[in-house]
């Protein structure tokens, strides 16, 4: 679960990280009030869950409260990569020329089976770009998941990265950031830029925070931060059912049992000359009611012209899948052509059930390629 910059900053503040002061505003008037209160130049920053806000015009320096109001007007309501800005963060501006900007981040790293601490003396730019252009500039260090990052390790990393400033204070911020990552079950915590002022004191100017959804059960306060408006409405509904669902931009609805098979199903739809409308994994062991909800969800998508159901039953019983599909058909929810490949556990029972229904809307195929081609053909009609 991604968090907004202001939320990530608040979490880091709880762990004692020196974070740049700021307040959230929903209207240009509120922006002006905050700017007046601070009595100094501010930066107005769009709060949306995507990178590259600056380039899109969503981050603006505002020397006066009037200018802040004007920038608030420009940014609020703006569309950044498909997301509407409905709130901004108003922060005290920092004179960037009077210090240096660095990058520090903690990321779940499957290659070391733990977190990796990353540090780079070239802050302010996207870490992906940095990694692509100058990988050698990024210092990487495995963090022990039990002990966490020790101050001496942080100092070593800061030295290797070429950080200038008060080494102890910089190391302290890195230790606090890593503690936040481990204690709050983050997938990713970044401070970028980490600003070091002329006195050598570090300050977090911007953050990225991504929390492990699987761990939200032990962080009820974080779970409440989930903002549905950031996602596609169908993704919000899918989350209620517990589905792994991603809205895509094609017209063939896709549904399968297991992340691997659904990923391959997307590949097969592409190969057949079509475009998937979504990724939907009904999970393992799904019963008829879950399948029914999945069919309902995909049917709701106005972009969907046909549905491709690809099942290889293991823990999931194919006949339960069939029952769910049939229920959706009987209740009039299923109105788009369904093309199916159904195999594995209880395959024969499933096929018998579906044959008995004898509907033109549902057709079965012996393999996933034929089913994909048929589904794509229907979507093109």
């Amino acid at each position: 679960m991604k968090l907004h910059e202001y939320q990530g900053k608040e979490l880091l503040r709880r762990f004692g990280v020196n974070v740049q002061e700021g307040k959230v505003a929903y209207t240009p008037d509120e922006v002006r009030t905050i700017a007046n209160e601070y009595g100094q130049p501010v930066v107005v920053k769009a709060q949306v869950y995507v990178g590259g806000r600056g380039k899109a015009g969503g981050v603006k320096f505002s020397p006066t409260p009037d200018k802040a109001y004007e920038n608030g007007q420009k940014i609020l309501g703006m569309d950044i990569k498909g997301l509407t800005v409905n709130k901004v963060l108003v922060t005290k501006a920092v004179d960037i020329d009077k210090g240096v900007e660095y990058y520090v981040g903690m990321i779940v790293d499957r290659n070391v089976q733990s977190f990796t601490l990353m540090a780079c003396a070239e802050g302010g730019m996207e870490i992906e770009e940095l990694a692509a252009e100058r990988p050698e500039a990024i210092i990487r260090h495995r963090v022990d998941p039990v002990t966490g990052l020790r101050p001496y390790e942080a100092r070593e990393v800061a030295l290797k990265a070429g950080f200038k400033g008060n080494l102890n204070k910089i190391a302290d911020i890195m230790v606090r950031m890593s503690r936040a990552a481990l204690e709050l079950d983050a997938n990713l915590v970044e401070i970028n830029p980490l600003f070091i002022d002329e006195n050598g004191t570090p300050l977090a100017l911007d953050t990225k925070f991504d929390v492990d959804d699987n761990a939200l059960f032990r962080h009820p306060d974080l779970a409440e931060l989930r903002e549905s408006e950031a996602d596609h409405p169908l993704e919000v509904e899918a989350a209620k059912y517990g589905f792994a669902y991603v809205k895509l931009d094609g017209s063939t609805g896709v549904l399968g049992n297991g992340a691997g098979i659904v990923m391959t199903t997307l590949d097969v739809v592409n190969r057949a000359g079509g475009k998937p409308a979504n990724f939907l994994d009904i999970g393992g062991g799904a019963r008829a009611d879950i399948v029914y909800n999945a069919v309902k969800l995909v049917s709701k998508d106005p972009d969907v012209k046909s549905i491709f159901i690809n099942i290889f039953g293991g823990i999931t019983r194919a006949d339960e899948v069939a029952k769910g599909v049939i229920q959706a058909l009987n209740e009039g929810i299923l109105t788009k052509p369904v093309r199916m490949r159904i195999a594995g556990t209880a395959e024969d029972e499933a096929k018998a059930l579906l044959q008995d229904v004898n509907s033109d809307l549902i057709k079965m195929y012996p393999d996933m390629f034929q089913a994909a081609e048929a589904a794509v053909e229907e979507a093109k009609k």
Partner: protein
Amino acid sequence: MAILVNKDSRVIVQGITGREGLNHTKAMLAFGTKVVGGVTPGKGGSEVEGLPVYNSVAEAVEALHPDVSIIFVPPFGAADSVLEAAHAGVELIVLITEGVPTVDMMRAVQEVKALDAASRQAGGKGIRLIGGNCPGLVSSGETKIGIMPNRIYEQKGRIGLISRSGTLTYEAAKLLGDAGLGTSTTVGIGGDPVIGTTFADVLPLFEADPDTDAVVVIGEIGGADEEAAAEYIASHMKKPVVAFISGRSAPAGKRMGHAGAIIMGNVGTPESKLAAFAAAQVPVADTMPQIIDLVKQVLNK
């Protein structure tokens, strides 16, 4: 012979009285797996399917001397169950549970590795964790310690199979079976970002197995496990390997169901995986059925 497990492997089930634990215990028994008992805290002394249930893994180990434990414990307690089994000295731990917090897995995997090293140093057989979020493993015609459909693993074959995806393992095993090739052992390593056993950990076992002629690796987008596997194959493997990569059309930055299946920046892209396999001279199938053609080709070389 098979790798990791065979018909004599003695298996206990952690979470045997839960819905999934019970259903899959029945399915494993039907396959012929030597399930010898189970563990559910608080239900010690009862029986399930004629098998004794214990309150702790330590009690079950003392009474039953299992080689393997398979875990069906819900996410919040799953990593703890792994550590319970590891400290009780179970040599092979298979974690089926999906949705275990990543930080829990980091800590469990690290501790299991430390126990493994200590066991080996003391002359023991070591301790290995497979999973989480995996379908388990099966030595065809001998034993199944997992949740795969029984039917496709009844016939013994000579192709080793390693996969990050449950369903695609079934798909591949069925294709190999239908083609008359069949599988020796199938290992589902799991789709999470932090797992106990990787492709590169399993490959040497197949290389050393006299009953495996070739290996199929089923990877997916995200992480760099396939790249590490390719490196191992290039420098250590004499047996032929064929690969498949799922999710080649997935958009960057979106998590495709598996927590580990996400392209982040330039890490985990299909291109880098394809390039790594190409460099290791491992043929990569474009579709699942093409895996069969490629396996036949490499066997005929």
